[in-house]
């Protein structure tokens, strides 16, 4: 069966520091992968999605970037974090029409 992993589960980073969040999927090949951010008590904001290795579509211009170095690996990065980057980051993959979400990473920028 397919599983999706995200790490770390929680992260506290100072303003201006770099960021790297990793997501990996097992049990499927060539998945569509997504990064979302969720502010406290709010809905999901789509940040990036990828339909294949090296193919990244950005939905929101900001200081975040994404990369897909391998078929089942999706990385979210930042060179310099802002306070507004705090939130709950969720990775998801898509099979047919359904999306399956990872456990999320809670990022607090201080």
């Amino acid at each position, binding site marked *: 069966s397919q599983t999706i992993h995200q790490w770390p589960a929680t992260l506290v980073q100072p303003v201006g520091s770099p960021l790297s969040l990793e997501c990996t999927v097992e049990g499927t090949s060539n998945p*569509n992968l*997504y990064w*979302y951010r969720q502010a406290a*008590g*709010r*809905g*999901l904001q*789509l940040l990036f*999605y990828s*339909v294949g290795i090296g193919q990244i579509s950005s*939905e929101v211009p900001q200081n975040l970037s994404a990369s897909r170095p391998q078929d089942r690996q999706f990385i979210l990065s930042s060179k310099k974090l802002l306070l507004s980057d705090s939130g*709950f980051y*969720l990775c*998801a993959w*898509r099979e047919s*029409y*359904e*999306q*399956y*979400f*990872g*456990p*999320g990473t*809670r990022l607090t920028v201080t």
Partner: protein
Amino acid sequence: SQQGEEDPQALSIQEGENATMNCSYKTSINNLQWYRQNSGRGLVHLILIRSNEREKHSGRLRVTLDTSKKSSSLLITASRAADTASYFCATDEVQGTYKYIFGTGTRLKVLA
């Protein structure tokens, strides 16, 4: 871009009662999905309804879709304390851009 909106934003009911949540969207869709999110966790897919369907059931869940009104409802019957969570609708765009647009969610609290 379209944005789903759920209402109410928050709902508090007693165990055993039914809970109804509504979702509205703005443009034509291929399908609409409902997800559940327990506090601090990832989302879990509940049910998908296609644009040519009007009603769908899964266990205690009943989803309706009215494409003429661009709205959907999720009914949870005989609610349990374990149903306490946030519920989101998500729509995909007809043009097949692989993107899903999530609503703002309804926070459901079921009191034991």
